C-alpha cells in the first residue's frame, strides 16, 4: 500500500475553519473543484481527509459516514451500503477491490489545510 509522502505535496490549501467541522465526525469541502471529505477525531486530536466519492456506487457521501476505529485504526463507514474504509491508507476494510484516495491534513492558525499533489 502506498502512503503519500509529504514531499509529493505541491500545495497546502486552506479548506475551512476548524469550528466549521463537527466534533468526532466528518464534513465535505470543495478544494480546487474537488470534493474532499474531512474527518475530525476530536477525542484523539487527529484529522484525516479522503475523496468524498464512494468508489462502490459513486455517491458523494463519504463525509456523511459514521467514523470510528477498528482496533485503534481510524475508519469511516459509507452511509449508503456501510462499506468501511481505513482513514490511514484509504483501503476498503470490507471489500478489497475498493480504495479511497487520501490527503494529508494539517491545522494552522485555526484553519484546516489539505495537502494537494
Amino acid at each position, binding site marked *: 500500500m502506498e502512503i503519500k509522502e509529504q514531499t509529493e505535496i505541491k500545495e497546502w490549501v486552506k479548506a475551512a475553519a476548524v469550528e466549521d467541522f463537527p466534533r468526532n465526525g466528518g464534513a465535505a469541502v470543495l478544494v480546487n473543484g474537488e470534493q474532499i471529505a474531512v474527518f475530525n477525531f476530536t477525542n484523539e486530536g487527529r484529522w484525516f481527509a479522503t475523496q468524498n466519492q464512494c468508489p462502490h456506487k*459513486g455517491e458523494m457521501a463519504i463525509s456523511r459516514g459514521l467514523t470510528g476505529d477498528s482496533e485503534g485504526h481510524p475508519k469511516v463507514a459509507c452511509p449508503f451500503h456501510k462499506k468501511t474504509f481505513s482513514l490511514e491508507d484509504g483501503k476498503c476494510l470490507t471489500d478489497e477491490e475498493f480504495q479511497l484516495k487520501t490527503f494529508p491534513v494539517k491545522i494552522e492558525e485555526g484553519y484546516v489545510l489539505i495537502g494537494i499533489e
Partner: protein
Amino acid sequence: MKKRIVLIGNGMTGYKFCEKFASSPLKEQYKLVVFGEEPHPAYDRVHLTSYYTGTVPDELLLAPAGWYDEHNIELLTNEKVIAIDREAKTVSSEKEKTYSYDILVLATGSSAFVPPIEGIEKEGVFVYRTFDDIDKIKKYIPKASKAAVIGGGLLGLEAAKAVLDDGLPTSIIEFASRLMPRQLDPQGANILKSKLENFDLEVLLNKSTEKITGNGKLEGLQFADGSTLDADLLVISAGIRPRDELARSAGLEVHQRGGIVVNSKMETADPSIFAIGECVVVHNMVWGLVAPCYEMAEILVNNIGGQSQEFLGFDLSSKLKLIGTDVASFGEALVESDKIKTIVYENKSRGIYKRLNISEDGKYLLGGILVGEAEEYNMLKQVVNNKIALPENPEDFILGARGGEGAAGIGVGDLPDTAAICSCENITKGDILSAIETDGAESVPKIKKCTKAGTGCGGCAPMLDDLLIHYMKSQGREVRKTICEHFDYTRQELYDLIKINEFKSYDELILAYGKGSGCETCKPVVASLLASIWNDLITKQDTIQDTNDRFLANIQQRGVYSVVPRIPGGEITPEKLIVIGQVAKKYDLYTKITGGQRIDLFGARVDQLPAIWEELIDAGFESGHAYGKSLRTVKSCVGSTWCRYGMHDSVSFAIEVEDRYKGLRSPHKLKGGVSGCVRECAEARGKDFGIIATEKGWNLFVCGNGGANPRHADLLASDIDKETVVKYLDRFLMYYIKTAEPLTRTSKWLASLEGGLGYLKDVVVKDSLGIGNKLEEEMAELISHYKCEWTEVVRTPELRNKFRHFVNSDEIDNNIKFVPLRDQKIPAKA
C-alpha cells in the same frame, strides 16, 4: 533416512491429508512432498464465489504457504506432475524434474466437465472451478452483454448469480426437466425456479445445447429442439470429471465413466499407490462433496500408519443459500416408494416447499427436502442420522407447533453425544461440549478455533450457537451479546448504565464505560438508547446518528433525500394536500403514495431540506420520522364513520395512537394499524401492533410484520376498551424498547423471548413482574418530551446551518443528476 510420501494434488482433499499427516506419528517416519499444479496453495473451493465477489485469495487459503514449511512438508506449487514410473517408483513433473517415492498418494481432484458441443472452443466460453477461471470471467465481463450458464446444479446456480450480480442478464440452461435434479423433486425444483425468476434469472429446462454459434467469439447457443438463445458469455457447469489421466497412463485401473478405482481402504491395485478425493471411484461412485473426501484423507493417513479403516459411504445431505433462498436436501430425499409416507407442505405465494419422508411404521425420519426456508435442516439431519424416534406429530417439524406453546419436539439436548454436528470435519456433539467445558470455548468463534467445527461449509454454525446456549443454560448461565469491540456490554446493560448515570451524550458514555473512538455499530445503538431514554433532540449529536437520522431524511440514490410529513391515520384535508402539491412543485420533487398511507417527496438536496420543511411546518405538518428507528405510521381503514360494515371509529383511534407514540425511538422501526371490523382492511395484523374492532370493544394484536418474512401478529388481549388498549400498548412498547437487541423488530424479539407469547401476556396483561405501572410512567415521561425534530431545526439557525453539502462553499453537489420519467424526475444512474 526417512521414507518419502509423494502426494499429487494440493486441493482441499490434498490439504486435509497434509493436515492429518502433520498431526500424526507418520511425520516421524516419512518425509511428505506435495505437488500442486495451481500457483496458490490449497484454497477453499467451496467458497469460490466469495472470491468472485471480492474476497482476496489469501483469506481463502486453507493454510498459509508458511504452514507447510513449519510442518516439514515440502510444497511445490505451479508444478504439474505428468508421469508416474511405477517400476522405478518415481514421478516426473512438467519442469522435467524426477522425484522418487515410497508411497504415492493421488489426490488429483476433478475438473469441470465440458460437454463435446460444437463450437465450445470459442472465445467467451468459461468454466467455474479455479481462481484462474474466475479471473478470466471477470476480465471478459465488461465486453459482454448477455450471459448463459449451462448446468442448473448447485455450482451452476452460484455461477449464474455471480454473473447476474455483475449486471449481465443471465439464462440458466438445464438438460433435465428440473433444477438441481440430484437434490430436489419436481415440486421443490419448481418453487426454486420461480424464486430465481423473480430475481430476473431466466431458467430454460429440457434444453440440450447442440451448437455454440458465432464467428470466433461466442454469439449464441442453438438447442436440439431448434430454439436459440443470444449470449456472448457462457459459463459451463455441467458437472465434474475426475482427473484420472495420470493414473490411466500409469496403467492403474480407471472406471468406465472416469475415476481411479480404489477399494474402501483407498488402495489401488499397486500396493505403493493410494488415491483419495474427487478423483476416485469408491463404492461405484465419485463423491463430489468435501466432507466425504475429507473422511477419505483421514482414513488413508490412519491406514498408512498401520490401521485398517474403511470408507463406508457418507451422508450427502446439503444445504445452501442461493439468491437469498435456502435449499436443502438430507437423507433419502428423493425416494419414491409405497413403503414410505411423505408429509408435504407447499406455499407457492411465499416460495416455500418442505417434504419429509417417513418410514412405513411412522417411527423414523428417512430424509427430506426444504426450499425457501430451511431453519430446521440441521435438526432434521440429526434426527435422520441418529435414528431418533419421531414425536407424535412429525409435521410440527415443518409447520411449527400449533395449539400449544413451545417449539416442536426435539432440540439439541436430545441428541446423543455421538451425533456428528460438523460433518465436514467430523466433529461430534461430545467433542464440542468438551471444548466448551474443558477448554473454555464459550463463544462460537472459540469453538470453531478449538474444534475446527464449522470451518468447512459453515452450515452447522447455527447449531454450534444452539449447543453453546443449551450448555450455558444447563449451567444456569447466559451467553452475552455485547455490542462491539468498543463496549463490552449488552444493549440492555447499556440501557441501565445510561439511565442510572444520567448520561446524556455518547462521549460521556464511551469515556466512562467504553474504549476507542466507537464505530458504525455502537454509535447508532447508543444514539437510539439515548433517544429511547431521554427523548432529547437527536440533532444535538448528529455525528453519532445512523445515515438517515443524521439529516432527518431518507438518503436515496445519488445522495438526494426524501421528505415524509406525518399524516396521522392517513387522514388529510384538501388544504394540506394542496400544500404538499405546491411544495413538491416548487422544489421539483417526485411524489409517491407510500404503503403507510402518506406521501413521500423524493429528490431534495441536503441544503433544500430546511426550506422544504419550513413550508410544510408552516402549513401544520410535522416530521413523519420515516428516517428513524421509531414509530412510522398507524394505518387505518375508513371505519364506522363511513363504512357500512364498520363496528367502531378506527380512524379516530389510529390518529390518537399515532399522535401518542410519534417520535418514540425504539430498537427498530414500529408500525401500527387499526381496523374497524374483522374484515381487517388496515392490514393491522401485519404490523408491530394491530388493533381490530369487535362487537364488545377491541382486540389487540402484537409482533407482526410485513417485509421479507411476513408474520401475522398474535392476539395479546381481546374485547378490551380503548383505555386498556393504550395501557397495554404503553407496557408492551416500553418493555420491547428496554429488552430487545439492536435492530430487532418486535416479531424477532418475541421469537427470542423466553416463554414466548404466554410470558409476554403475563408481563403486559397480568403484570406478573409488577412493573406495569413503572412501564406506563416511563412511557408517559417519554411522551411528555416529544418535540417535532424538524420544527426545532427550522427554527434554530445553528442546527439549520448543518444542512449544507460543503462546509466551505455554497456550491451544490454536482454529482446529482436527474432524468425524466412519466412526467416526473428520477435520479440518473451513476
